[in-house]
């Protein structure tokens, strides 16, 4: 199986991928407009444009928001159907991920089920944030 397609971090996103490698899910929030969390990473608040933002460690708790189960696996993803999911983090933002330690079936994957982050090292540089039933 070919190497899984992996992200190439940029200066603006490096803290997120460094966090994953260290076992932390890092989000950002704005100090200027009420502390609202946002994702994906960027060095300013998408709500108000302020550069006064901070990086913090998120709880890693989420619920399953929506998904599809891909029946025609991408070559780098193996041979079995897999869910491509969007989870809603307790802190507010949503992110795409995979659900692990769970059958990849509509019966097992119920919307709004509770999840927690589960890190998976892919290479020396990259660890991906997956989620599993909490």
């Amino acid at each position, binding site marked *: 199986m070919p190497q*899984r*397609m*992996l*992200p*190439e*971090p*940029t200066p603006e*996103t490096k803290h997120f*991928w460094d966090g994953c490698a260290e076992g932390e899910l890092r989000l950002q929030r704005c100090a200027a407009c009420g502390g609202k969390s946002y*994702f*994906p990473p960027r060095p300013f608040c998408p709500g108000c444009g302020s550069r006064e933002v901070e990086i913090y460690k998120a709880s890693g708790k989420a619920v399953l*928001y*929506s*998904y*599809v*189960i*891909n*029946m*025609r*696996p*991408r070559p780098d*993803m193996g041979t079995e*159907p*897999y869910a*491509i*999911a*969007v989870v809603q983090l307790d802190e507010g933002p*949503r*992110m*795409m*991920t*995979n659900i692990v330690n769970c059958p990849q079936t*509509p019966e097992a994957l119920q*919307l709004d089920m509770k999840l927690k982050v589960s890190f998976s090292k*892919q290479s020396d540089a990259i660890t*991906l944030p997956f989620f599993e039933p909490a």
Partner: protein
Amino acid sequence: MKQKSIAVVGAAETTKMGKIPDVSVIGLHADAALNALKDAGLKPTDIDGVACAGLSPVELAHYLGITPTYADGTAVGGCSFMLHLRHAAAAINEGLCKTVLITHGESGRSRVGAGGFGRASSSLMGQFEMPFGPAGPPTMFTIPVLRYLKTYNLTVEDLAWVSVIQREWAAKNPRASFKDPITVDDVLNSPMIAWPFRMLMCCLVTDGGGALILTSADRAKDFPQKPVYVLGTGESVETPMVSQMEDFTSSKAFRVSGKKAFGEAGITHGDVDHLMIYDAFAHLPLYGLEDLGFCKPGEAAAFIRERNTAIGGKLPLNTNGGGLSYMHSGMYGMYALQESVRQMRGIAPAQVPGAKISVCHGVGGMFAASGTIIFSNEAP
């Protein structure tokens, strides 16, 4: 823009449609362009504005021997042509040019002279979506749908009805790729592509193209074809990542674009005789009907099931058969525009009798962008 200040005076699709292994992408652009020029009674040298997506307007202009004073390379996916039309209307009104040619050509099936599909691994999509296994639009455009179905207590059968009723329209269109009738059971028993989407809920993959020619309404009356006037236009963009849509049950880009177009046109929903909603997948007409304001949130599925959008219904929708049954080369917006123009000229294979106003609504990317054009066939 000012209502009815601009008109479509040339419109055509590629000579062939469906599987065209002997023509490259730029060849499809040129074939559609030459057909539209013939339709308008013009030569390439009569054109002073060009617009296209998937190909650079530089390539298009040079290939056809055009020296433009206006070029638009807006490329926001399948609704790019709605945006081209909108920008061309503004450009003509501002005096940047007089006659604009908008082209589309795509070797979606045969891949002759076509580029690849992909994003840099350093892009936001490359970093925060691609590592989790998306394999093209059927696994991305579809991601919000389980949330939509749960929110409104709907089922996959509601999606299947969209495909069934559009196939009824396709049966009346000799150029449609698929014309044989299908049932809800046929849809629900077709191969699973990406749960909950089955093959017959997904668009075709074909080759083809189309072109439009626009000029000012003042000049339009001197052309051989019945002018189709632009009554209102809208556009917007939301996010390059479907996972970051603000609301999984509604498209912000649809709402903004639609509202702008209806506002410019000065019409109400009851004035609309004919509607096109870009249907790359079966859920898009549901989102479109609701986000454009034809139905309340969650009510579009029942509206379709009750045959309001079918032949003989009060709001004929996707009368060419749509991307689900007519054709879909990758950027379907051009074909939706072509069908609106045919309906306004009164020459569509499944002509809506007496239609005077047509709304044509497009999507780009995976709910990334939107464009809406409202046409009228009544002179200003």
